[in-house]
């Protein structure tokens, strides 16, 4: 079953009947989930789907192509503001605006990819970081974008049906996320994906093999920005209101944290990273409501710290997770998954 006999079998999306079965089960689960779960969990699922898209987008750049980016909040902002403004000012329909905004983000990704051709390591980090900062600053200062106060997302409607609930948004968000995951998985199995991986492993070796560095590096930035832009557009409707302060430097680090926790260079890892980290992020915000630990923490805070600062524990825990994962398990959750799988496969041995 594991033997591949020709190239077309190798690039197939699902290569066995078992996988097809689980694939269909997954679709069924995704469709039935919102009818069984309470509304808060639907909101959470939307959030997760959006973060999965970003994580995959960033992973294409960081994990597959080996370029660092500390400016993805900028692309996220372009996607969000682009979608909202195209709908408000030019009365684009939702899907059209979303795709257009994502293409604008992809264009900016391409532009940012140009200096990246010559930069690496800390130099690339500062260039992307500067880009992210510049985007939020420009948006914050420009009246067209609503300035510091931000803008409200317009009413959402798709094919004439107006969508106002989390349930409605769930179907849009999760469908798009699902398609984008499949798209990324497909992309990575093709010539383009292999070129990205070759560049990550050694760009000089890749170039001697005939990989066009200029083309593929900028393409990696553009694809990554496209994904992030789509996620940004969906995010604007999840919150219903966006302001420049949402898209700060810390957000870019959070995105990187998602990628690291999930596992560099793995689509499946990105999905796990997006889910787990979103869950942590939303739950840690209300850490003081936990049954036993919450009371203890409040007591501790009153004595030594400040109670108002308690939610900042999230930042501490995120930071520790990043450090410990990088130190002990550089492959992230995906590494755990692989190791447990191998453990059970060979079990008593």
């Amino acid at each position: 079953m594991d033997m591949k006999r020709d190239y077309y079998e190798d690039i197939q999306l699902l290569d066995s009947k078992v996988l097809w079965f689980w694939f269909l089960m997954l679709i069924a689960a995704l469709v039935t989930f919102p009818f069984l779960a309470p509304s808060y969990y639907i909101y959470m699922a939307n959030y997760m789907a959006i973060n999965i898209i970003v994580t995959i987008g960033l992973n294409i750049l960081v994990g597959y192509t080996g370029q660092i980016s500390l400016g993805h909040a900028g692309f996220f902002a372009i996607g969000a503001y682009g979608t909202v403004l195209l709908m408000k000012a030019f009365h684009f329909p939702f899907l059209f605006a979303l795709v257009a905004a994502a293409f604008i983000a992809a264009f900016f990704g391409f532009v940012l990819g140009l200096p990246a051709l010559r930069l690496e390591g800390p130099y690339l980090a500062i260039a992307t970081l500067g880009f992210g900062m510049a985007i939020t600053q420009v948006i914050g200062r420009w009246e067209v974008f609503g300035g510091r106060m931000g803008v409200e997302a317009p009413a959402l409607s798709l094919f004439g049906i107006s969508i106002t609930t989390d349930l409605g948004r769930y179907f849009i968000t999760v469908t798009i996320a699902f398609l984008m995951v499949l798209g990324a998985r497909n992309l990575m199995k093709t010539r383009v994906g292999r070129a990205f991986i070759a560049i990550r492993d050694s760009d000089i070796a890749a170039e001697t093999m005939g990989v066009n560095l200029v083309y593929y590096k900028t393409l990696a930035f553009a694809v990554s920005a496209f994904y992030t832009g789509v996620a940004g557009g969906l995010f604007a409707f999840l919150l219903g209101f966006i302001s420049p302060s949402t898209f700060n430097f810390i957000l870019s680090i959070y995105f990187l944290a998602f990628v690291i926790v999930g596992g560099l260079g793995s689509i499946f890892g990105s999905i796990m990273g997006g889910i787990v980290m979103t869950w942590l992020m939303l739950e840690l915000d209300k850490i003081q409501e936990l049954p036993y630990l919450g009371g203890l923490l409040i007591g501790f805070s009153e004595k030594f710290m400040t109670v108002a600062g308690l939610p900042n524990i999230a930042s501490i825990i995120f930071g520790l997770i990043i450090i410990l994962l990088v130190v002990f398990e550089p492959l992230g959750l995906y590494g755990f998954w692989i190791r447990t799988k191998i453990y059970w496969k060979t079990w008593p041995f």
Partner: protein
Amino acid sequence: MFLQLLLSGLSFGSLYALIALAMVIIYKTSEVPNFGQGEMAMLSTFVAFTLLVTYGHSFAISFIGALLFAALLGAFLEFVFLRRAKDPNILSLILITLGFEMVLYGVASWKWGADQRDLPFPVSDFDLVNLGPAVISYLNLATLLVTLALMLLLFLFFRYTKVGIAMKATQQNPMAARVNGIRVNRILSVTWAMSSTIGAVAGIMLAPVATLDPNLMLEPLLKGFASAVLGGMTTLVGSALGGYILGIIENLFGGYVSLEFKSIVAFGIIVLVLCFKPSGLFAKHYIKKV
């Protein structure tokens, strides 16, 4: 007007130069841009604040206490986390320092909240010194002088002390340094301690100009990093010059063109400079060998 902008640009630039120096010292030995630098300095500044206001010590004692704390913190982070990384590449090292940034930020905002405080500083920001056509506040003057003194100290340290020379050896070739009997790991810890101390000085000098809250060092760190990159991450002198250049350009831009977009211009310049000189203005560009 021009001279005035130049002067205040210089004093801001000297803060950037300090942060840039702190980053470069670490970068040269550990090969990682330390994103935790800003929060390390911020935390040390809070320690100074606590010693000064909560416990009522004198400024000198609080200052020295904060510097000691900074040195310990730097050595601690290097020893406990960075050294443990298996087979580190540049990305994972950057991520570890980003992790420091988040942890320290979280600790500071948990402990001190988001309130804005004032660090009482013995030198006033409002009394001015007349320097011919331009004026400069005592505080800015102090910042300038302290920075210059620190740079001189660093220069002497790297040139004439045994530890300084060992550091330079480690920077050039860790393996050869180890062969020659230098304890490379210990040197790394010392480097982190030193860099953290320099950062703390920058933080304490900055606190009276800005307001003391957990976000104190967020933007200065990025500017400091930007100026290190502008000058070149591998040269101490270059990165300090980068800091001054950035401070002056930023201030001139703020004065003549647009105050609103002042803080973006720094990053615009960096990206432009990097397009033409990928290793910064004053560093030699090494072409990677395969």
